């Protein structure tokens, strides 16, 4: 059943994705009436799917990469809802919904035969590591989306162009602040999550884990995160440069996430 609910949620998110694309093409006034309830309903099904997964297989089931992706998608959908309620705009949907849809779709088509051996889990450490990092990734993604919105709106303002899609965006300074706050909020989670993971990895693999590509990319991502925050705080780095940097940090984060599929040491439980 959890898989069925997840697939229903994927279809409903698909409606949100179509609406987001129509909005970019200056259409979508009518689809908006269907998309908002569809996405809301999708989130309910999505939540039910995760709760059922946790109750059937235990919380450790969330450690499979597919369920981690599913949880990340739900957190991003919740963040989008928060933005929608705060700024009364669905403009970020154009950047957010492709990812939500991709993550839920990937999770929904995967085989879900979850078998978890207790020896693969070091108490609650890995669960803590995964949960904090999922939140950290979600915040980094929000910062990335803010960067894209900033670049689009800034470009339109400088070129003296107005599209109805951009006209519905929050103000430039609000977008900038949003990206900065997402970084501020996400950084502690990312740091704690990486530390927790390092402790477990050191315990299991010894010094060998430090040369794993996944670990190296994660460290690079964390370093960029730190530089981004520091330059913003000390030199007031904002605007286009900050947006480019946040985009680069997110690109590295995507690589670090993707390295889960390549790493020999750092693996989620088999999907």
């Amino acid at each position, binding site marked *: 059943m959890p898989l069925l609910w997840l697939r229903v949620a994927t279809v409903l998110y698909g409606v949100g994705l179509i609406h987001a694309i129509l909005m970019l093409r200056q259409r979508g006034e009518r689809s908006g009436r269907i998309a908002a309830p569809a996405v809301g309903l999708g989130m309910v099904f999505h939540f039910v799917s995760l709760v059922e997964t946790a109750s059937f297989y235990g919380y450790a089931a969330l450690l499979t990469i597919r369920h981690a992706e599913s949880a990340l998608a739900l957190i991003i959908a919740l963040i989008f809802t928060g933005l929608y309620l705060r700024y009364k705009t669905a403009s970020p949907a154009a950047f957010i919904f492709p990812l939500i849809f991709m993550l839920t779709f990937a999770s929904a088509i995967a085989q879900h035969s979850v078998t978890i051996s207790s020896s693969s889990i070091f108490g609650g450490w890995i669960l803590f590591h995964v949960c904090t990092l999922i939140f950290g990734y979600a915040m980094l993604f929000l910062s990335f989306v803010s960067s894209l919105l900033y670049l689009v709106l800034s470009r339109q303002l400088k070129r003296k162009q107005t599209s109805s899609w951009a006209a519905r965006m929050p*103000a430039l*300074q609000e977008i900038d602040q949003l990206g900065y706050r997402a970084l501020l909020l996400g950084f502690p989670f990312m740091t704690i999550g990486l530390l927790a993971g390092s402790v477990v990895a050191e315990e299991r693999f010894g010094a060998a884990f430090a040369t794993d590509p996944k670990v190296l990319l994660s460290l690079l991502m964390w370093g960029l995160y730190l530089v981004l925050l520091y330059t913003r705080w000390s030199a007031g780095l904002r605007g286009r440069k900050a947006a480019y940097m946040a985009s680069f940090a997110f690109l590295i984060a995507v690589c670090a996430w993707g390295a889960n599929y390549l790493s020999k040491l750092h693996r989620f439980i088999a999907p």
Partner: protein
Amino acid sequence: MNFFVLGVNHKTAPVEVRERFAISESRLPEALGKLTSMSGVEEGMIVSTCNRVEIFARSANGDCDLQKFVREYFGFVAGEYEQYIFEHQQLEAVKHVFRVASSLDSMVVGESQILGQVKEAYATARALGAVNSQLDQLLTRAFAVAKKIRSETAIASSSVSIASVAVELAEKIFGSLAGKSVYLVGAGKMCELAARHLIAHGARKIYVGNRTYDRAVALAEKFEGEAIPFDRLYDTAPWADIIISSTGAPHAIFRKEHGEKFLHIRKNRPMFFIDIAVPRDIDPALNDLDGIFVYNIDDLQQVVQSHIGDRRKEAGRAELMVEEEVRKFEQRAQTADVVPTIVSLQQHLENLRQAELDRVRGRLGTLSPEQEMAVEALTRGIINKIMHTPITTLKSAARDAESTTVVDVVRKLFNLRSERPAEPETPPDPPAPPPPAPAPLQDQAAMTTSASPARANQDQK
């Protein structure tokens, strides 16, 4: 439905003609009194604004000479200003009222002032009793249509003046303008106007820099701002989030290197430059800097034009909505035209029923309550059956615009009174024909009581 509209507006008459027709607020009661005392005018209302002077009226018999009112009230001779006056009747008048209230007939389509002005004129006329029946319904409907158009189209969603566009852009950059500071460079009228708009939207601090310091002081005093000597311009400019420049300098006074310095001091917090000077005060290269946005007078004008274009597109949708609303209004009004006849018919047959019952009651002897109910049900059933077809025919005829003939026929057939009874709020439903098979006496009585003409008359009262 005998509605009339006559007047002059910005489309038909220049200002020197419109001002001859203007009726001040203090003279409005007197004008309305004269209008409604004219023969044929049942209700009337006058809208007098800088862009239009229009008279809305309703006549009971379709005879309403508003031209005569205009001649007599303003003292014009016959034919004078005739070419500037427009006149609409019946559905065209209804459509015009809807369009005016919805701001589709305004100089700046979508502006919100006209709705308030029409509402004020309506309130005045209503208070004086000049609007009390069908014209009241027309105006109430017009306000609802205007509201619907404003909420369902984007006709009024964008700014169409230079100053309001400047505010809109500033809000797009900074979000709320609360607490933002504005620097006026030069003390021109446009600067002042833009500053007023920004302050109205929350801007807090105003700095004024001008080559003539006294003028800077005078303008700063108006806004409780701070005058800055012109030689301190580059040191103080980074204090402001928004800079409006309108000096008469022959060359740019803000160049790229200034912008870089400002951004460094402001830790890259954005700045919005509005250049309303010709020749321009701000080097366009400043716009290339990340965090600085420069709009000159042409850029602002371009945004205004684009918004006007958007409004025009939306106006097309709004016109279709008006057409639809006029059609609905016509249908309602046509049904209302036959309502008095339906009510008279119901009353007439009910009187006949009561009279016949009274006549035969002596011969029936004493009846038990059940028998009383059975007789009531029987007689009402017969009357309802007789009335069903004429009422249905009247209602369908009303929609087919042949109501006058059918009304006359029905009135003659049933010998109804020629004077019309007071109109009920909603048209009564035709009585349901009695069931083909006789039902048990009690049930039948219960069924027919609810559709009785007496009940309809009670509702009417």
